[in-house]
C-alpha cells in the first residue's frame, strides 16, 4: 500500500536524520570541549591571552632602567620563555632579558609587522603593546609544536574522563528527540484514532491530515463515505419496505370492511339456516384475525425501522394493569378462563413513562395468546411487582405453554421461529424494548416477564 510505504520511508529518513544529528552534535561538542581545554591550558603556559593579561605587569621601573617584576619572573618561568624584550616606538630595544645575540638589533616597522604574526627568526613570540613600548616574549624555537603534543595527551585523558558525561548527554538528547517525535506522531495519529472510533459508532467522518498520514486518512474518509452511502441505501430500502407494508395493510382494510360487514349481517340474518349463520360468523371471526394481523404487521415493521413515533406519557403501572384486566373481565363471556391479579402494594405509588396504548397492546397480545392457544380454558396469573427502579409484569398460565422454537426465537437464539407464527409475541417484545424495558420468556415456557423503568 502506498500510504504505508510512505510512512515506512518517512520513518527511515527520520531515523537517518536523528543519527546524523547526533553525530553532528557529538562532533561539535567534542570540538568545543577540546578547543576550550586547549585554550584554557594554554593560558597557563603559552597562551596569548594570558600574556596579554599580564603584559603590563611583567616589567617594573628601576630608576632609568626596567627589571622583571615578581609577576614577570613567575610568567617567565611558567611560560617557559626563552627571552623578553621591550621595544621603543622607534624599534630600539629598551630592555631585554636573556635575548639571543642574533636578535639584538633595531627593528623596523616591517620587522614588527612580520614577527607579530608569531615568529621572530623562528622563535615563537607573543607581542603586546604596553605603556612603555612593545613587549615581546619569545619561546624556544620549535617549542610550540612539541608543546602542543604534550597538551593533546592531556586533553585525551580529560576527554576520557568526559566520556560518561558525553554518553549521558547523548542519552538525554536521544530521549528528548524520541519524546518529541513520539508526541508529534501521537498527535498526528490522534484524529485518525478518533475517526476510527467514530466510524465504529456509525458516525460520518471527514479527517484532514498532511504528510505521511494523508493517504491513510483519505482511505478512512473514503470508507466513511462508503458506509454512509450504504446506510442511506439501507435506510431508503427500509423506508420503502415499511411504506409498502403500510400501504398494503391500508389497502386491505377497505375490502376487509366489506367482508366483515356482510359476514356480520349474514350472521345476524334470521332468515338464513342456522348453519349458514354460523359459517358467516366464522368468516367474521377470521376477518377480525386478519385485521389484527395486519395491524400487528404494520406496527412491527414500523417499530423495527424506528418509524413509529412513541407518544410517551406518565402513567401509573398499577392502574394501567387494572384497566387492561378489567376490560378483559368485562368483555369475557366465558368462565373457562380465570384471570388472577396480584399487585405489589409498593407499586401503587409509582409512576412510569411510556406509550400507554402500545404497552396495552403488548399486554393484550400476551393475554390473547394465553387465551387463544388454550381453547379448553386455563388460569392466567398476572403479577406486578416493584423492583427498585423498575417494575415487572409477569404473565403466567397453566395452559399448553410456549413452543420451544418460539422461546428460542424471542430470546434471540435463532432467527427462525419455525412454522408457528410469533407476531403477537414479537410485537410485544418490540414495544417493551422501545419503551426502555426488558422482555423475556422464562425457561418454564409458561411465564413471560416484562420489566419497565419507573420514572420517579
Amino acid at each position, binding site marked *: 500500500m502506498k500510504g504505508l510505504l510512505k510512512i515506512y520511508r518517512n520513518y527511515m529518513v527520520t531515523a537517518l536524520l536523528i543519527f546524523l544529528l547526533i553525530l553532528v552534535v557529538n562532533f561539535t561538542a567534542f570540538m568545543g570541549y577540546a578547543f576550550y581545554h586547549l585554550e584554557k591550558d594554554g593560558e597557563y603556559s603559552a597562551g596569548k591571552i594570558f600574556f596579554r593579561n599580564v603584559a603590563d605587569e611583567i616589567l617594573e621601573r628601576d630608576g632609568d632602567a626596567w627589571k622583571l617584576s615578581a609577576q614577570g619572573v613567575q610568567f617567565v618561568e611558567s611560560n617557559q620563555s626563552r627571552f623578553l624584550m621591550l621595544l621603543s616606538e622607534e624599534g630600539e630595544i629598551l630592555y631585554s632579558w636573556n635575548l639571543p645575540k642574533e636578535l639584538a638589533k633595531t627593528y623596523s616597522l616591517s620587522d614588527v609587522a612580520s614577527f607579530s604574526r608569531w615568529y621572530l627568526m623562528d622563535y615563537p613570540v607573543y607581542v603586546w603593546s604596553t605603556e612603555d613600548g612593545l613587549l615581546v616574549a619569545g619561546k624556544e624555537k620549535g617549542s610550540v609544536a612539541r608543546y602542543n603534543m604534550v597538551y593533546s595527551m592531556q586533553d585525551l585523558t580529560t576527554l576520557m574522563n568526559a566520556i560518561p558525561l558525553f554518553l549521558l548527554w547523548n542519552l538525554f538528547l536521544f530521549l528528548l528527540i524520541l519524546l518529541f517525535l513520539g508526541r508529534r506522531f501521537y498527535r498526528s495519529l490522534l484524529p485518525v484514532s478518533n475517526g476510527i472510533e467514530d466510524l465504529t459508532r456509525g458516525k460520518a467522518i471527514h479527517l484532514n491530515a498532511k504528510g505521511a498520514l494523508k493517504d491513510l486518512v483519505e482511505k478512512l474518509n473514503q470508507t466513511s463515505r462508503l458506509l454512509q452511502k450504504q446506510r442511506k441505501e439501507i435506510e431508503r430500502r427500509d423506508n420503502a419496505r415499511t411504506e409498502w407494508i403500510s400501504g398494503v395493510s*391500508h*389497502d386491505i*382494510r*377497505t*375490502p*376487509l*370492511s*366489506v*367482508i*366483515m*360487514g*356482510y359476514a*356480520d*349481517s349474514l350472521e345476524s340474518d334470521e332468515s338464513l339456516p342456522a348453519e349458514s349463520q354460523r359459517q358467516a360468523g366464522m368468516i*367474521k371471526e377470521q*376477518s*377480525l384475525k386478519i*385485521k389484527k394481523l395486519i*395491524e400487528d404487521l*404494520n406496527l412491527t415493521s414500523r417499530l423495527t425501522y424506528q418509524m413509529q*413515533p412513541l*407518544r410517551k406519557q406518565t402513567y*401509573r403501572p*398499577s*392502574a394501567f394493569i*387494572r*384497566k387492561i*384486566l*378489567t376490560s378483559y*373481565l*368485562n368483555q369475557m363471556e366465558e368462565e373457562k378462563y380465570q384471570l388472577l*391479579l*396480584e*399487585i405489589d402494594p409498593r407499586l*401503587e*405509588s409509582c409512576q412510569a413513562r411510556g406509550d400507554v*396504548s402500545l404497552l396495552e397492546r403488548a399486554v393484550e397480545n400476551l393475554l390473547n395468546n394465553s387465551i387463544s392457544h388454550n381453547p379448553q380454558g386455563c388460569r392466567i396469573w398476572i403479577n406486578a411487582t416493584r423492583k427498585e427502579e423498575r417494575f415487572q409484569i409477569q404473565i403466567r398460565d397453566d395452559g399448553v405453554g410456549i413452543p420451544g422454537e418460539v422461546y428460542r426465537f424471542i430470546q434471540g437464539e435463532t432467527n427462525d421461529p419455525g412454522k408457528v407464527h410469533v407476531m403477537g409475541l414479537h410485537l410485544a417484545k418490540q414495544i417493551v424494548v422501545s419503551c426502555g424495558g426488558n422482555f423475556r420468556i422464562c425457561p418454564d415456557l409458561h411465564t413471560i416477564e416484562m420489566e419497565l423503568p419507573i420514572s420517579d
Partner: protein
Amino acid sequence: MKDLYESRILLVDDQPELCRMVMEILKKAGYKNTRCVYNLKEARNILNTALPDLWLLDVNLPDGDGFTFLQELRAVSGCPVLFLSARDQDADRLLGLGLGADDYITKPFLPRELVLRVANVLKRTYQPFVQKEEQTKIHLGEKTVDFAGGTVEQAGKETALTAKELLILQKLADNRGNIVTFDALCETLWGDNYYGYENTLMVHIRRLREKIEENPSSPRYLLTVRGLGYKLAK
C-alpha cells in the same frame, strides 16, 4: 327533526362496494335518509346546497383528503362529522379528532360498532332538540335511586345521597354489569391526582352500601371485585 332515524347521513368514500355496504347497514339499523358521493367535488357541491345532518368521511379520496375537506366544512358548518378511514395511525386519528371530527372509526369495523357510534354522535348533537331521555332512575331490587333528586327511595321512604356517593353510583350505573376500577372511580371523584384516596373511596362505598343494599355486609348490587374495583350488578 322528529326522530334521529330521520337524520340525513352522507357518506363520502371512493369505494362503491363499501358505500353500498355502509348504506345497507345504516338502513337496516333504521336510518332512512342515507346517500353517498364518491369524491370531494361532489361533496363540495353538497356543501353549497343542502347540508346533511351527519357526514361519514373517508380520508383518502381520489381528489384530495378528508382532513382538508373537514376544514372547509368547519368553515361553514358545525354539523357532526365521523371519519371512516383505513388509516389507523394514532397520528391520523389525533389529527382528525383535532380538526373537530366527532369520531374516528378505522376500517375494518364491525357493523354494530358503526351503528353505535353513529347513534352516539347523533344523540349527542341532536338529542336536546328531540327529547330528553336521560336515565335518571335505576332500580336496585326494592330500592330506586333517583339521580336527579339524589335520593334512594324504598317504600316511600327517602334517604339522601352525598355528592360523592352520587358520583360513584352514577359512574357504576353508567357501566352497569361491568367492573369499574378503583382508579377510574377515584379519578371521577378527585381528578387526576387521586393517589392516596383509595381508602377514602372504601369509606364512601361502605356508606353507599348502607344506603342502597338490603344487607350491607353481604352486598347484592354493589360488588367488590378483589384487586380491581367495583361493579354494579344488573
